[in-house]
């Protein structure tokens, strides 16, 4: 497609000129949150709007629907979709226009569906409301869209309720709802951000195909350059409410001019701390054969199955796995919040009591947990100062001026202004809250930090800044960490060793370097090949992913625990993998895996079919 960036003219199908959106500022004065924004989208083109949160992407996207969030106002400019001047529409006309001519796909599909209604009736609703087609025809069309979006069982999936499909499937059903009216423009707001990598690939692939086949004009809002690289024809980079740079996907990726774009690229590019090879030390934390779950002792629903690992002082262990595999559960057990069913947690070679109440204050101080969601981890009714002062008093008996001085030091440490101490948590941004969360853990002067998805709710740039901070703190304070994430590139940026969990089993454990080499556990391989790359066309190259529900295979007899990955595994051996416990194999590259296939077999098959994405310079291995 040869649309020249910057050339404005009537050939744009959708055109935004000099958009100005203001919000009510603290003193009642309107402050611009989007200003001087102009861009055009040609018919059938996908334009990406990229930037971190607070940069005004969503605000700009919503203005294409003629909508401003409460407290905001579209104060100037022009928005044209097809032949419609959107900002000139009256309220009643807007209602007709939205849904029929422009539709919106939000980050969380779950919030957009009524849990009590079947999917199909919700999907066809826009078509019925706007009287675009009779019900029968709409249902037929919905099924076609389900098929195009690669949903399983497209004919009958519409009969299900929202909770009966997975998050990735629901996101695709939502796309069907958005497309049912053949809109002139679809606005997709971070539609794959909430998904796991392996799921995200499927969703992206489905979106891309539909958008291409139907020649839909789309605005794709995201903070993830790698995702955008797969799907967009052109990119507008936003920062602070204004467009910083506009260009085709290729030029933005290869030849970014604006410093902000470069910082985005740098934050998205794979990085890593220098490889450290410390002399072996006695482990700080040792976890042996840990089994844990929820429910009562009798009716325990196990989540973790026989997980073992060690963390040496000052080392960082990354824990990866998809949602629900038991990562947070592991952190909870180590922190003493959830007593294990069996297995041991040892600190300095001493067994830690299972329950937090039985641990000594020194034990507690040494292991601190930083929770997944910064929003709920800080008490909304207390100011930051007292929140940070609490552990100081609890562990170190500090109060008054000493405590206040230490709070200021802690704020310095996490690079926040000292005045933040007087604020309440909801007066801070997501990234700032996460820093406070971290500061509270650091106040204890721990030796081991359990970080549960500390950056997953943050945008790339803010998240990268928090990661840098963690890496620095680790160097300065000699902290050991267990770093939990579902995002491989994050883990790779900071961890020495990486453990991969699948359905509560430790399927692979090895150093970061070892993970980069073949052979790998088949699940690791799938995971690695699912991480979007900053390379347009990557999406078309990756092999089809086996997307099925993760499920622990039932234990057959006592002690027999077949491979949980069996149903999704391309290398499975019927009758073996689903019958017998996979053996623990130590690989020659270092590290260990849990698999029935031996090293030679794995190497052969993986080298043949995978793109080696783990290395910093991806190469495609040929088949011998």
């Amino acid at each position, binding site marked *: 497609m040869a649309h020249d960036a910057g050339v404005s003219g009537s050939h744009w199908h959708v055109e935004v000129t000099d958009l100005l959106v203001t919000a009510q500022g603290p003193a009642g004065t309107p402050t611009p949150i989007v200003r001087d924004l102009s861009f055009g989208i040609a018919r059938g083109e996908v334009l990406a709007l990229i930037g971190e949160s607070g940069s005004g992407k969503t605000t700009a996207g919503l203005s294409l629907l003629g909508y401003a969030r409460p407290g905001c106002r579209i104060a100037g400019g022009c928005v044209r979709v097809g032949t419609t001047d959107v900002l000139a529409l009256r309220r009643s006309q807007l209602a007709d226009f939205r849904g029929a001519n422009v539709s919106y796909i939000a980050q969380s599909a779950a919030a957009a569906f009524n849990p009590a209604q079947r999917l199909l009736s919700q999907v066809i609703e826009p078509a019925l409301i706007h009287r675009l087609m009779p019900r029968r025809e709409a249902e037929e069309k919905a099924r076609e869209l389900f098929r195009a979006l690669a949903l399983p069982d497209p004919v009958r999936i519409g009969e299900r309720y929202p909770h009966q499909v997975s998050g990735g499937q629901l996101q695709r059903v939502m796309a069907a709802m958005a497309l049912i009216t053949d809109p002139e423009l679809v606005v997709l707001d971070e539609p794959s951000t909430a998904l796991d990598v392996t799921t995200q690939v499927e969703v992206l692939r489905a979106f891309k195909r539909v958008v291409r086949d139907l020649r839909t004009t789309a605005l794709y809002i995201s903070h993830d350059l790698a995702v955008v690289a797969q799907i967009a024809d052109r990119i507008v980079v936003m920062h602070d409410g204004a467009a910083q740079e506009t260009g085709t996907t290729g030029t933005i990726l290869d030849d970014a001019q604006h410093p902000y774009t470069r910082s985005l690229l740098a934050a998205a590019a794979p990085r890593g701390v220098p490889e450290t090879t410390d002399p072996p030390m006695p482990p700080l934390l040792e976890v042996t054969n840990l089994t844990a779950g929820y429910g009562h002792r009798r009716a325990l629903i196990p989540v973790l199955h026989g997980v073992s690992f060690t963390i040496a002082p000052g080392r960082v262990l990354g824990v990866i796995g998809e949602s629900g595999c038991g990562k947070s559960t592991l952190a909870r057990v180590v922190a003493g919040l959830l007593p294990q069913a069996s297995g041991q947690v040892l600190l300095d070679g001493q067994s830690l009591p299972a329950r937090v109440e039985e641990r000594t204050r020194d034990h507690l101080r040494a292991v601190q947990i930083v929770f997944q969601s910064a929003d709920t981890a800080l008490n909304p009714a207390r100011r930051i100062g007292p929140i940070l002062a*609490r552990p100081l008093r*609890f562990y170190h008996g500090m109060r008054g001026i000493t405590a206040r001085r230490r709070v200021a030091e802690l704020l310095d440490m996490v690079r926040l202004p000292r005045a933040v101490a007087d604020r309440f948590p909801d007066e801070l941004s997501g*990234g700032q809250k996460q820093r406070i969360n971290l500061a509270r853990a650091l106040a204890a002067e721990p030796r081991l930090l359990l970080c549960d998805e500390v950056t997953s709710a943050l945008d790339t740039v803010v998240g990268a800044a928090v990661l840098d901070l963690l890496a620095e703190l680790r160097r300065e304070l000699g902290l050991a960490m267990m770093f939990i994430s579902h995002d491989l590139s994050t883990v790779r940026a900071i961890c020495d060793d990486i453990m991969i969990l699948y359905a509560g089993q430790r399927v692979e454990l090895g150093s970061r370097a070892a993970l980069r080499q073949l052979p790998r556990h088949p699940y690791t391989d799938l995971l690695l090949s699912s991480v979007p790359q900053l390379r347009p066309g990557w999406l078309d190259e990756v092999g089809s992913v086996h997307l099925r529900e993760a499920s622990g295979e039932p234990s057959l007899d006592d002690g027999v625990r077949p491979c949980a990955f069996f149903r999704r595994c391309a290398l499975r051996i019927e009758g073996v993998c689903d019958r017998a416990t996979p053996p623990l194999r130590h690989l020659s590259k270092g590290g260990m895996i849990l698999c029935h296939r031996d090293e030679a077999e794995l190497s052969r098959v993986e080298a043949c079919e995978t793109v080696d994405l783990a290395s910093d310079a991806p190469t495609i291995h040929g088949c011998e």
Partner: protein
Amino acid sequence: MNHDTPRGRRRARPSPVALAAGTVVVACFALAVFGPVLAPHAEGTIVSRNIFAPMSAAFPLGTDYLGRDMLSRVLYGARFTIGVALPATLLASGTGTLLGMLAAVRGRTLDAVLSRAMDTLISLPTLIFSLVVVAALGSSITVLVLTAAVIYTPGSYRIARSVAVDLSATDFVKAARARGEGGLAIMLGEILPNMVMPVLTDFGLRFVFIVLLLSSLSFLGLGIQPPYSDWGGMVRENIEGLSAGAPAVIVPAVAIAILTVSVNLLIDNLPGRGSRHRGA
């Protein structure tokens, strides 16, 4: 590089509604203390042969069914209405909140015992329960306060417990537990500050219920004993004047309405942070 975007600081200022309601509430409380001093007549004396007299210069709020000065009676009555309802509500709300929080934080056994006990209490018919208690112990301010408190504690308990259960599942409470904090510190430091708003809202509601309970007790002759009367009692004793449109029945009813509505308006419009974190 830190691209975080802090939101502006918002300091809450009391709204005009809160100010107005607060003024009325304070005025009512002042009446409860200074009413007898301000009243032109003693509360029991019959000052006119005219019963259910309309408003006049001599009797600004008319007279009651015995020809007593309504202004004086209303001024005296504030003492009983507020003097019984306020401590009773404080007691019910305080006990309910404390027990609810304990049940939520202290684990299953205590929760089961307390919840069972509260369910039993709530299943007792209010009036029969009061009747038995007052008949057994005699009617005094203390007995009335305690009876009303016992009757309305379970309601407060249920609200407080459900809010506290939600709060104990939050990450900031988990963080406190992981830190090794004891139950008391978690209750006071983490949970209670977030319960202020729901508890206050509940307080306003209970206050209304207790004022109404008092008037029904007076009606049955179990409340404040004649010649004294609380506002609710005055409505009941003058109810025959209703058809005549006598102020004697309307004025105390309006007084009750003003008191209860302004207490609730004040609570709903309190400035501050709690309001935005209900049930967090």
